[in-house]
């Protein structure tokens, strides 16, 4: 793995991943953020669940206001 790639995917903690997942609902992520996030999600079940739950909550709010 090139140092560039490894630097990009390193050090995305669950804390940071969860923040990015939330911000994704409010702004477009940068390509770098998207890649870091994707790598983290590939190895983290908890954040993957968190990601699905965020999407579900947005859907629930849509139902809430209809």
């Amino acid at each position, binding site marked *: 793995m090139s140092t560039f790639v490894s630097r990009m995917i390193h050090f995305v*903690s*669950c*804390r*940071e991943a*969860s*923040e990015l997942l*939330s*911000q994704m*609902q*409010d*702004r477009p992520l940068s390509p770098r953020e998207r890649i870091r996030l994707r790598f983290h999600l590939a190895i983290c*079940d*908890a954040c993957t*669940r*968190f990601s*699905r*739950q*965020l999407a*579900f*909550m*947005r*859907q*629930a*709010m849509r*139902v*809430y*206001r*209809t």
Partner: protein
Amino acid sequence: MTAHDFAQELERHRGYLYRVAHLQLRDRDAAEDVVQDTLLAALSGSGFSGKSSVRTWLTGILKHKIVDAIRRKQRDATPVTSLAPEGSELELDDFDALFRDDGTWEAPPAAWGDPEEALQRREFLDVLDLCLEKLPAATARVFMMREVLELESDEICKELAITANNLWVILYRARVALRMCLEENWFASERRA
């Protein structure tokens, strides 16, 4: 549908509209005013296409009335200063407890089974309502601006005079708190059942 039926149908949503408006404006009279304006506009206008539900349509009208009211309020007098500090200091301890020092989850999100099914249930929407009410007021207000009034980030920042970073932190906390509340009060008990 006769005009009378239509008026009655609109009237049924008054309570919901008032709750949304009050959360945003924090003022009973101002909330009642925008709701009244909304219902009048709905009654006189012919904007209802039948493509969306009546409530969605009314929410759309209400959104404009609320934004106008917020703008008027800001122009008239009180500068909005209170929101950002309140939003950023809420329950900091709870949030530190959310993650371990190495950044991993202290209590990882649990599997929710089939959440889609919950959306069909009236009781789930009641729990959602309850969880929204449990959010700190400033947090709930921002969250509702984003998710119910569907304002864009930059619009909210402008209305409330807060930075984008501040907004993202508030929305993040709202979502995390809402997620925990739904898990505790719906999905966990569903698993037990």
